[in-house]
C-alpha cells in the first residue's frame, strides 16, 4: 500500500471511529449493562490474519477520546489520596488527623485508628488472583518505606491532597533491612525452583576452561504512562470498579475477597490500559482502599496514585544477584553450568524472580545445577516486569557465554552453535519449533556481525569506541483456555466479545482480523468489545499468552457460527434455503449457498432478516470437551488452568537473537546505542505491524534497563529517593537508535491453536546482555552490574 493510500485510509477510519466514540461517550452509565463496554470498529475494507493493519484503537487514543479508568464521569464522586509511610520498619504509634479533618471538603480520613475493613486476598500461587497479600490499614506494622498508612477522602482531589499533607504520624522506628546487599538479610532457598542433572560440581572442577562470574541487576520499575488509578462505585450491595487492568477476572476475584462479597456482585471494567508491562495484572492495595471507602461512604471514590507513589504503591522488578560458573573444553563444548541466584522480596511475602528459566534450557550441557533464593528486605512486594525471570536469567547467562567466548578465543555465535540444544536439556522433551539458528543468521547478516573486528577496543571513530554485541533469549509458551462470543446482527454488524483486555498490544485489532478471516466478511463490519467482566471469560493479558488464547477462542466461535448459520439456513421455514440438507450447503465469504450452485448465495444479514432474528449469539472456547464451569471460572479468575511451556511432553518457547552496536566516549564513558537489530521466532505472526511494535518496545525497555534504570535506595531508611521521572531515567527519543526487527518464526501448531507463539515479552529478553557485551567489545571493560552508567566505565 502506498503512503498516500494509507493516509487516505486513516482519514476515513478516523471519521468512522469518531462517530462511534461519540455514541459511546453519550451513553449513560448504567449497571449492569453493556452500553459502556468499549467497542472498536476495525479499520480496513479487506484484511486477513497476517496483514499489517494499524491499531483500530489508535485514532481514539491519539485524539484523547479513549476514556481511561479514571476519566469516567460519575455523579457525587469523592477523591481519595493515600498517605505513605516515611519509615521502612517499625510501627505506626499514632496518626493525628484533626488538622486534616478540619479542612473544608474533607469527607473522612481512614487510618489504623479508623480503618476500612479489607480481607486478605488469595494469592495467585494459592488459587486466587492476587499478586500480594498486603492489605493496608489493618495493623500498625510498617513493612517498607512508602507503604500506604492512610486514605484521605474529600470532595476534590486538591482538598484531599492538602489534607493528606497535614497528617501527623508518630512512628516507632526499627532498623530496616534495606536491600539485597544488607548484611542483616537472611536469604531463603526456594528448593522447588532449583534444577539439576548430572554432576555439575565435579564436571566444573574438571573443565579445561572456566568462567566464574557474578552479575547483578538493580531495582527497576514498570512506570507505565498511565499511573495506577481507579474508580470504585458501590451501589445496592454491588460494586463496579473502573481499573486499568491486564486481568479483569483476577481483579474481580480479589475485590470480592477484599470486601467479603460474592463475586457475582463485582464488575471490573478496563477497556483501555495505558501500559502495564506486568504491573497491572494484579489489583494493588490502593484499589482495595477505593472499594472499601466507596462501600463505607455509599458514593463513588477515585484513588489515583501520584507518580512517586507508583514506585511504592506496587513493586517493580526486584534487584537480583546471580553467580554463574561455566566449564568447557578447549574446543568450546560446555560440560557444566553451576548457577545460583538471589532476588529481593517483601519482608513477609515471597516473589521469586526465576533467574534460571533461560539458564536451564539454552545450551546442551550434560551437567547442570541451579539454586534460587529470595532475600526478604523492607521493600514493597516486587512484581512482574516484562520477561520476569527470563530477562535477568538471559542477562547473566548470555554475558557469561560472551566471557567464555573470549576465554576460548572463539566467536560468540560459533560458541552458541557448538552448544546447540537439539531438545530441551532440562527434561529431554523435543522443542516444538526453535528457529534460533535462523535468528542468529538473519541478525548477524543485518548488523554486519562478521565484518567487525572481534578484538576488544579495536574499533573506533574519532573519540568514540565502537562495540558490537549479541545475545540470545527465550520466553516460555504459556496458554490458558478462554472463551469468546460472536454476535451476528441482522444489520450486518458482527460483534466479537471477550473479557480479555487490550493493554496496548493490539487485541482489538487482531480479534477483528480473526473474525473477519474466519467468517469471510469485510473487517469494517466487525466490532470488538473487550475488558469487562460481564463479557466471556478470559485469562490474563500477561505472559505473552493472550493473542494466542483469544484468537483461538474467536476462531472456535466463528467455526460454531458457520455451523449454526448453515443449520439455520437449512431448517428455518422462513429461510430462502429452507428444505436444503445442511450437508449440501457451504459457507463462503460471509454467504451461504448450495454447494452445487455457484453464485453469491445469501449473506448472514439477509438470512437473519429472513428468519426474523435480530441477532444470533454464538459462543466458542478452547477448553477441552467436558470442561466444567468450575474449570472455566478457574481459567478466568486464577492460574489453575494455565498450561506451561512443557505441556504435552513437548517444550514450546519463543526465541530471540539480539544484536547491537554501541558507541562509547573514550573520556566520559557515556554509551550511545547506534543500532539495534533483532531476529525473533514468535511462530506465526497475526499482524506484523503490531508484533514489530511489541518487539521494538521491548527492545527499548531493555535499553533502559541496561543503561539507565536504577531505583536508588537510601541506606539509612530504605526510601527510594529517585521516585519520579526526572531522577529515575528512562530512555527518551534521543536515546533510541535505528531499530530493525526480523521475524524468523514459522507456524507452530503444537504451541497454539493458530500457530502463534508469544510476542510481547521476548522483545526485552537478551537486550541487556547484548548491550553489556557490546560495551565490553568497545572498551575492553566487563561491567557486571546494571545499569551501565558512565562512572562504571571511568
Amino acid at each position, binding site marked *: 500500500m502506498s503512503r498516500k493510500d494509507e493516509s487516505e485510509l486513516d482519514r476515513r477510519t478516523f471519521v468512522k471511529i469518531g462517530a462511534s466514540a461519540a455514541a459511546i461517550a453519550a451513553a449513560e452509565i448504567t449497571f449492569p449493562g453493556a452500553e459502556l463496554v468499549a467497542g472498536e470498529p476495525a479499520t480496513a475494507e479487506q484484511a486477513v490474519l497476517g496483514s499489517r493493519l494499524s491499531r483500530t484503537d489508535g485514532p481514539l487514543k491519539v485524539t484523547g477520546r479513549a476514556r481511561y479508568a479514571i476519566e469516567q464521569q460519575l455523579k457525587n464522586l469523592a477523591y481519595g489520596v493515600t498517605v505513605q509511610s516515611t519509615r521502612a520498619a517499625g510501627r505506626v504509634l499514632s496518626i493525628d488527623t484533626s488538622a486534616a479533618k478540619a479542612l473544608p471538603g474533607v469527607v473522612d480520613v481512614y487510618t489504623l485508628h479508623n480503618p476500612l475493613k479489607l480481607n486478605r486476598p488469595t494469592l495467585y500461587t494459592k488459587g486466587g488472583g492476587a499478586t500480594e497479600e498486603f492489605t493496608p490499614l489493618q495493623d500498625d506494622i510498617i513493612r517498607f518505606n512508602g507503604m500506604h498508612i492512610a486514605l484521605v477522602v474529600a470532595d476534590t482531589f486538591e482538598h484531599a491532597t*492538602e489534607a493528606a*499533607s497535614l497528617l501527623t504520624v508518630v512512628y516507632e522506628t526499627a532498623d530496616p533491612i534495606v536491600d539485597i546487599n544488607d548484611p542483616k538479610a537472611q536469604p531463603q532457598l526456594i528448593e522447588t525452583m532449583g534444577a539439576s542433572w548430572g554432576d555439575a560440581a565435579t564436571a566444573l572442577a574438571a573443565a579445561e576452561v572456566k568462567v566464574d562470574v557474578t552479575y547483578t541487576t538493580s531495582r527497576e520499575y514498570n512506570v507505565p504512562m498511565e499511573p495506577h488509578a481507579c474508580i470504585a462505585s458501590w451501589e445496592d450491595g454491588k460494586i463496579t470498579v473502573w481499573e486499568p487492568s491486564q486481568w479483569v477476572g483476577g481483579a474481580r476475584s480479589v475485590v470480592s475477597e477484599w470486601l467479603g462479597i460474592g463475586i457475582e456482585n463485582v464488575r471490573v471494567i478496563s477497556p483501555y490500559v495505558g501500559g502495564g508491562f506486568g504491573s497491572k495484572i494484579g489489583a494493588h492495595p490502593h484499589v482495595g482502599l477505593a472499594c472499601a471507602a466507596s462501600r463505607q461512604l455509599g458514593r463513588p471514590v477515585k484513588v489515583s496514585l501520584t507518580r512517586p507513589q507508583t514506585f511504592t504503591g506496587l513493586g517493580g522488578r526486584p534487584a537480583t544477584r546471580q553467580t554463574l560458573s561455566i566449564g568447557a573444553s578447549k574446543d568450546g563444548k560446555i560440560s557444566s553450568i553451576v548457577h545460583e541466584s538471589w532476588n529481593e522480596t517483601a519482608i513477609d511475602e515471597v516473589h521469586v524472580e526465576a533467574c534460571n528459566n533461560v539458564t536451564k534450557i539454552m545450551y546442551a550441557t550434560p551437567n547442570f545445577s541451579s539454586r534460587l533464593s529470595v532475600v526478604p528486605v523492607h521493600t514493597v512486594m516486587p512484581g512482574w516486569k516484562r520477561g520476569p525471570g527470563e530477562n535477568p536469567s538471559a542477562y547473566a547467562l548470555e554475558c557469561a557465554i560472551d566471557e567464555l567466548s573470549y576465554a576460548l578465543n572463539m566467536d560468540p555465535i560459533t560458541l552458541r552453535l557448538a552448544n546447540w540444544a537439539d531438545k530441551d536439556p532440562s527434561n529431554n522433551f523435543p522443542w516444538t519449533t526453535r528457529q534460533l539458528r535462523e535468528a542468529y543468521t538473519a541478525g548477524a547478516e543485518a548488523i554486519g556481525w562478521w565484518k567487525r573486528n572481534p578484538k576488544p577496543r579495536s574499533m573506533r571513530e574519532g*573519540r568514540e569506541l565502537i562495540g558490537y554485541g549479541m545475545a540470545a533469549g527465550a520466553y516460555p509458551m504459556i496458554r490458558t483456555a478462554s472463551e469468546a462470543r460472536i454476535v451476528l446482527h441482522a444489520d450486518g454488524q458482527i460483534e466479537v466479545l471477550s473479557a480479555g483486555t487490550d493493554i496496548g498490544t493490539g487485541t482489538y485489532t487482531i480479534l477483528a482480523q480473526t473474525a473477519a478471516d474466519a467468517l469471510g466478511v469485510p473487517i469494517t463490519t466487525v466490532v470488538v468489545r473487550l475488558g469487562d467482566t460481564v463479557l466471556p471469560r478470559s485469562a490474563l493479558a500477561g505472559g505473552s499468552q493472550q493473542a494466542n488464547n483469544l484468537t483461538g477462542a474467536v476462531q472456535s466461535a466463528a467455526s460454531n457460527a458457520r455451523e449454526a448459520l448453515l443449520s439455520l439456513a437449512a431448517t428455518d421455514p422462513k429461510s430462502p434455503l429452507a428444505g436444503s440438507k445442511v450437508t449440501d450447503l457451504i459457507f463462503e465469504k460471509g454467504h451461504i449457498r448450495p454447494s452445487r450452485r455457484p453464485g453469491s448465495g445469501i449473506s448472514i444479514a439477509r438470512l437473519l432478516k429472513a428468519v426474523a432474528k435480530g441477532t444470533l449469539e454464538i459462543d466458542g472456547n478452547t477448553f477441552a470437551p467436558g470442561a466444567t464451569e468450575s474449570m472455566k471460572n478457574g481459567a478466568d479468575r486464577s492460574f489453575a488452568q494455565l498450561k506451561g511451556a512443557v505441556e504435552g511432553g513437548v517444550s514450546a518457547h519463543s526465541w530471540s537473537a539480539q544484536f547491537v552496536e554501541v558507541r562509547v566516549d573514550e*573520556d566520559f564513558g*557515556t554509551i*550511545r546505542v547506534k543500532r539495534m537489530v533483532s531476529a525473533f521466532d514468535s511462530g506465526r505472526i497475526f499482524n506484523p505491524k503490531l508484533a514489530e511494535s511489541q518487539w521494538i518496545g521491548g527492545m527499548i525497555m531493555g535499553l533502559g534497563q541496561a543503561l539507565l534504570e536504577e531505583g536508588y535506595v537510601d541506606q539509612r531508611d530504605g526510601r527510594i*529517593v529517585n521516585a519520579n521521572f526526572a531522577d529515575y531515567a528512562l530512555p527518551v527519543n534521543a536515546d533510541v537508535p535505528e531499530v530493525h526487527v526480523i521475524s524468523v518464526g514459522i507456524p507452530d501448531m503444537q504451541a497454539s491453536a493458530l500457530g502463534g507463539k508469544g510476542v510481547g515479552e521476548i522483545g526485552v529478553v537478551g537486550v541487556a546482555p547484548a548491550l553489556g557485551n557490546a560495551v565490553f567489545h568497545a572498551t575492553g571493560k566487563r561491567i557486571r552490574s546494571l545499569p551501565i552508567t558512565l562512572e562504571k566505565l571511568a
Partner: protein
Amino acid sequence: MKTFDYVRADDSAGAIAQTADPETRFLVGGTTLLDLMKLNVESPARLIDITRLRGLDIIAMSSDVIRIGALAKMSAVAAHADIIVAAPAISESLWRAASPQLRNMASIGGNLMQRTRCTYFRDPGAYPACNKRIPGSGCAAIAGINRNHAVLGTSDACIAINPGDLAVSLVAFDARIVIRGAVERRVSVDEFFLLPEQTPHLEHRLAQGELIVGIEIPRTPALKRSHYLKVRDRASYEFAAASAAAGIELEADGKTIRDVRIALGGVATKPWRLHAVEAVLKGKTLNEATLRSAAARSVEGAKSSGHNAFKIDLAPKVVARALMTAGGIA
C-alpha cells in the same frame, strides 16, 4: 499545597511594588515554582504573574553587548540567529537544557532562579531536615544518595548543586544580571550566586522587592568561538553529570591562546568559573596535551561525598573536551 492568591501585573513598577512581602513570588513559566509548590517546598501566599509585562522579552545585539529580556523564552533565545552566531555556548546551553515543552514555557529570568534538584530538598514529607529549607535543621544528602550532588563549593551544611546550564555559560562570559527595584542595578552572574557556606537558604543576591529584568553579555571573540558541552547518561532531558562552557580567542598565528573562558556545571553549588585554568592557558599554544594538563586544575579543592566521586574524575575531561571543541581540535 497551600491556597494562594494569584495577581496579574500590568507593569514592572506595579509588580515590584507588590513583592515587598516575603510571601510573594513572581510567576512566569512556572516550570520550577509550581513543581516546588506541589511538593510543599515553596508555599507562597501570593503569585504575581509577570508574563504580560511589556518589553521584557527582547533579544537584541549591539556591537559590544547582547541584551536578553527576562521574559524571553529559553527556546526563543536558543533559536535566535544572532545568538547562534555571536554566542554559540549560550544557544547550546539552552538547547541542552530541559525538554522542548519546558523550554517553550520557561523564561530566562526564571531559569536563573531555578532551585536545586537535590532529591532530599524536594521531599520535605520524608526529610524534614534541610538547611536550605529550614536553616540549621541539618542535611540529609551528605550521608544519603549523593550521586548528583556537588563536589565543588560545598560546605558541611549543604552539597546541593546549582542545576542550570545557561548560568554556566553566562558566568564563563562575564554576563551581568539587570535587576530592577527601588533603583536599577547590575550584578555579575558570578557574584549573583552565593556559596552555601553556613547559609544555604541564601542562594542569590536578589532582594525581596527586586525583579530580574534582563541579562547583558559582553560580546567577545572568545564568546563567538565558544561551545557548551553537557555530559550525562541519558542523551537528552537529564541534568548534567558534568558540563562546561568554553570559549577561545587565538592570536593571529592561529595557534596561540590570547583569551580563554571556561566554567563548569553539574559539579558545584554555583556556576563555577575556572579562572585558574584560564590563567594557565593564556599565551600557551593550543594543543590537546596543554588543554588536558590545564583542565586537571578544574577540580582543585573538590570534595567527594561518596557516590559523586566520579564527578572529580569526569569534570577535567569535560573541560578539556569543551576547550578542544571550541578550539577546533576535538
